[in-house]
Structure formats: C-alpha cells, structure tokens
C-alpha cells in the first residue's frame, strides 16, 4: 500500500478533502431535510403568525386542536383504510404478475410492458382518464354496468365508494412497479430448485408456498416498506379525482396537510400534522433498520 500518503500529517489534510467533497450535498440535505424537520417540530408548539402578530408559544395547543379536529381523524381513518387496502392488493398482484411474466408465456414482452406502463406515466395525467371511467351516466364503468342492467352509480360522488375508487387507481399504478423487484428476485433463484421439487413430485402450489415464497421474503420486506411509505405519500390522484371529497371521504393525511397549510394558511397546525407524518415515516425506517435483516436493503 502506498501508505505514505496516509501518514499522520497527511490524514488531517485528507479529512479536509473529504469534508469539502461532502459539503455541497450536506448543506442542501441539512437545509431541505434536517432543518425543516426540526423547525417543523418547533413550529408545532407556536401559533400561526398573522399579519403584525408574531407567532407565540402555545405549547401543545396545536396538537390539542388536532385531537379535536374531526377531519384529521377522518384523514387518519381514510389513510389507514387506504394503506390496508393498497398494500396487500398491490403486493399480491405484483407477485402474481412477476410469476407470470417470469414464465415463457406467449407475448411475454407485451404483457410485461402492459403491467409496467402505469409506473412511468404521470399520476396526474392518468387520473384524468380514470376520472372519465368513473363519470356518472356516460363513463366507461357506467356503460359496462348499464349493459349488465345494473343501476347507475356515482362512484366518486358517493362517500361509500369514493375511497375505494381512489384505492383502485393507486393499486393499478403501483402493482407494476413492485412486480419489477419480484421479477428480479425470481430470476436470481436457482433453477435446480424447481427441478428438484418437480422430481419429488411436489405440486406447483406447494413449490411456491414452501420454496419460492420463503426465498422471496427479503424482496417482500423491501417492497412492503416502500408500499407503506407510498401509502402515506400518494395524493396526486386525489387532486384530480375528488379533491378530498365528498364530505372528506377521500381526504388522506398528506392531502389534509396541504389543505391546512396552503388553503387555510394555518402553518402552525400544518406543522403539527407534518410531525405526525414524519413520525409515521420514521417508524417505518426504524422498523426496517432494526427489526429486519440489513441485507434486505440492497441485496
């Protein structure tokens, strides 16, 4: 080793070099991630400054009004429901898609492309198309149900179906993205496992359940963490499809945060909601870091 360069005298200089290389990125990370996170926490204990009246310390008042805010609780319920529906549905479909396109079915390239296409399209753009699907009277869904003789229904307009309609769009958008990770994992599995199982006379379902599924576990964990994060970040389609309505039936946490912060300009209350979101996302991070196998991160 050309160790002379890392002698005691040289090491201080190398440290300076390293910090200089890091500096631009670290400054921006601190300015737009760490500092705002800390400032949000501080702001959540102050009132919203209005005109000439500066912010004053109010303690947990913002959190108190959060607890008393029925829309906040509705957003929490909606978001939990949305997560509980999108996460298993998109992961399950992704796995099914990956198993299919991993085999040599006819037209595999087309099928693979069809599954993945929603991932590259802007959510805000495809939401326009879904809006038409859900339109009452003449939308595509209405035409299908009408042909089957079913009664007309306003999918986005009635509180009982609006959240389900939003969820469906999210599953459609996400499944193909998660499929890619399963596909990558399936392709690294040793083909001789399949042969051995076949020789033993194991059924295909048995082989999947006892061999493939356990081996795919690290991928499932990785995908799961991403799915949880996305469940709390995905709101673009809400803007086009429902704007949180009807009657807050589709208001998710991030959408509520947007409304409080940028429609009502109640920045202090918005800070309190942000803290909740950051706590949720950090818990996911800590869960991944401490509970789950570290090699899951990047194989």
């Amino acid at each position, binding site marked *: 080793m*050309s160790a002379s*360069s890392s002698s005691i005298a040289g090491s201080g200089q*190398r440290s300076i*070099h*390293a*910090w200089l290389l*890091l500096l*631009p*990125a*670290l*400054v*921006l990370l601190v300015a*737009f991630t*760490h500092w*705002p996170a800390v*400032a949000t926490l501080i702001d959540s204990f102050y009132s919203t400054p209005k005109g000439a009246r500066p912010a004053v310390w109010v303690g947990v008042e913002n959190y108190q009004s959060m607890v008393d805010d029925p829309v906040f609780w509705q957003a929490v319920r909606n978001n939990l429901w949305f997560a509980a529906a999108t996460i298993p549905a998109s992961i399950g479909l992704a796995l*099914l*898609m990956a198993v*299919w*396109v991993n*085999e040599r*079915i006819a037209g595999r*390239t087309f*099928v693979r*492309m*069809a*599954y*993945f*296409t*929603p991932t*590259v399209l*802007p*959510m*805000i*753009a*495809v939401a*326009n*198309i879904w809006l038409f*699907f859900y339109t009452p009277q*003449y*939308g*595509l869904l209405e*035409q299908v149900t009408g042909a089957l003789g079913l009664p007309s229904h306003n999918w986005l307009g009635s509180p009982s179906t609006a959240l389900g309609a939003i969820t469906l769009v999210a599953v459609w958008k996400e499944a193909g993205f998660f499929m*890619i990770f399963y596909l990558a994992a399936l392709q690294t599995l040793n083909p001789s496992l*399949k*042969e051995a199982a*076949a020789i033993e006379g194991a059924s295909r379902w048995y*082989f999947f359940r006892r061999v493939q599924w356990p081996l795919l576990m690290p991928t499932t964990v990785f995908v799961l963490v991403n799915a949880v994060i996305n469940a709390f970040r995905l*709101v*673009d389609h809400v*803007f086009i499809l429902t704007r949180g309505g009807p009657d807050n039936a589709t208001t998710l946490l991030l959408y509520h945060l947007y409304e409080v*912060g*940028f429609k009502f300009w109640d*920045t202090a209350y*918005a800070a309190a909601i*942000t803290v909740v979101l*950051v706590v949720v*996302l*950090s818990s996911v*991070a800590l869960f991944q870091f401490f509970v789950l196998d570290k090699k899951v991160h990047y194989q």
Partner: protein
Amino acid sequence: MSSRQAPAVIYRHTWLDTFAAWLLALLWILPLAYAFWTAFHPSEYATRFDLGAPWTLQNFRHAWDAAPFARYFLNTTLLVAMILAAQLVLSTLAAFAFARYQFRGKNIAFALVLVQLMIMPDILLVENYQTMARLGLVDTLFAIGLPYFASAFAIFLLRQTFMGIPKELDEAARVEGASTLQILWRVYVPLARPVYTAFALVSVSFHWNNFLWPLIITNSVESRPLTVGLQVFSSVEQGVDWSTITAATLMTSAPLLVGFILFQRQFVQSFMRAGIK
C-alpha cells in the same frame, strides 16, 4: 443439461395462466388504450366505441391552443435537466468521499444522508415553502428543483458502486501524477456509467411526474411544469371535453411513454437496479 429439460415440462404454465395474464394485461392498459382512442377521434366518439369513426388530430390542436403547453414543456425539460445535472455532480463528489476516505464523523455524516431516504422534501412542504419565501425564490423553476439537488439515493447508489472499484486502479493513476479529481473523473465515473444511466432514468421519470411540491411553489405560467399546467387546465369547469383532455394527457406523458417503449429493456433493468426513487 439433459436433466434440465425433462422435469421442466412438469412445471410448464398452463393455458389458463396465459389467459389470465393476458386478461390482466389488457385491463392494465385499458386506460391508456382508451386515451388513445378518444384523443385521435372527434369528440362525439369520446364516449362510444365505433370502429368506423374517423381519425383526427384536431383534439391535439385544441389542447395545444387551450393552454401554453410549449411553455410547460420547456419548463419541465429545463427542470428535469437542472435537477439531474445537480444530482449527478453533488452525489458523485459525496459518494467518492464516503467510498474512499477515512475521516472523523464519517458515520454520522452518512447517517444524516440516509435520513432523506425516508423523509423526503415532499413531506416537509410548509417549512420548505417558507425557506423559499425567505430566499425570494417562490414561483421559480430553481425553487422546484433545489430541495432535490442533494439526493440521498444517488449518493447511496454511487457509494456502493465506487466501493466495488479496485483501489489498484486509482493508485496506478496517482503514480502517473493524476490529481484526486482527475482520478474521479477519469477512473470512477466511466466505470460507474451503467449506474448513472439507471439513476438518470429513475430521476427523470420521477421529476417529470412530480406534482405536489411544484403545485405549491409555482403560481404563474412562467414557472409551471407540465403536471401542474395539466391540472390547472383540466380542472376548468366549462363542460368537460374528454377528447381535448385525453389529447393533453397523452401529450404530457408522450416523452416518457416514447422513451419507455424505445428503451423498455433498460428501463425495466434500471428500475430493478435502482429500487426506490
């Protein structure tokens, strides 16, 4: 080799698999297929399917005239290019420091970087908006991009790659009298090219599609990207014209869609490699 063929037959997919896979695939592209149909036909065919319907480009002309799409395209292109360039430069430097230097505080610095993988700037909207207001940057393209310039994901990805490059290579270059930055530029960057491509694809498609932060930080045509422009355009309530909206939708997605069809294999592989956005 011979043992591979016989048992493989037992686990062959059935016709039912193929049928179901195709059914799902058709369902999955139905929205896009519908958009194509509607955008290329006169508006009276927007809600009914008729094979004899005439083809037209009129809807695209309407959409193009209804909003300053040329400006939106320019904004989005500039935005995406600016973000990518900044991300590549800043994360290359940072990743090199993490991969090849030993220094005090390295682990803490690295932990600080990883925090951003979970808490992205799109969650800290209110505070970041106030920062931009203080800097006088609200309603500029620069303000849309700035929070994303330092990408923890890019730093992580490049650090992994750089660590895999043999040290002998840069010692050889050092003997030749190359400076640190020259080594980085001549040895490390070329060897990491596939990773740069993968990251570029992920970054471009993410920022082309990004919506919430640009919506908040922009309020004029001069700085609005396509996604925000499309939303403003299609939420105008003067009798919804589906043909024009689908045409605008297709225009907005066209560059990514064409890129995706042309580079399908690379796209899929780079998403596999690159993971999170």
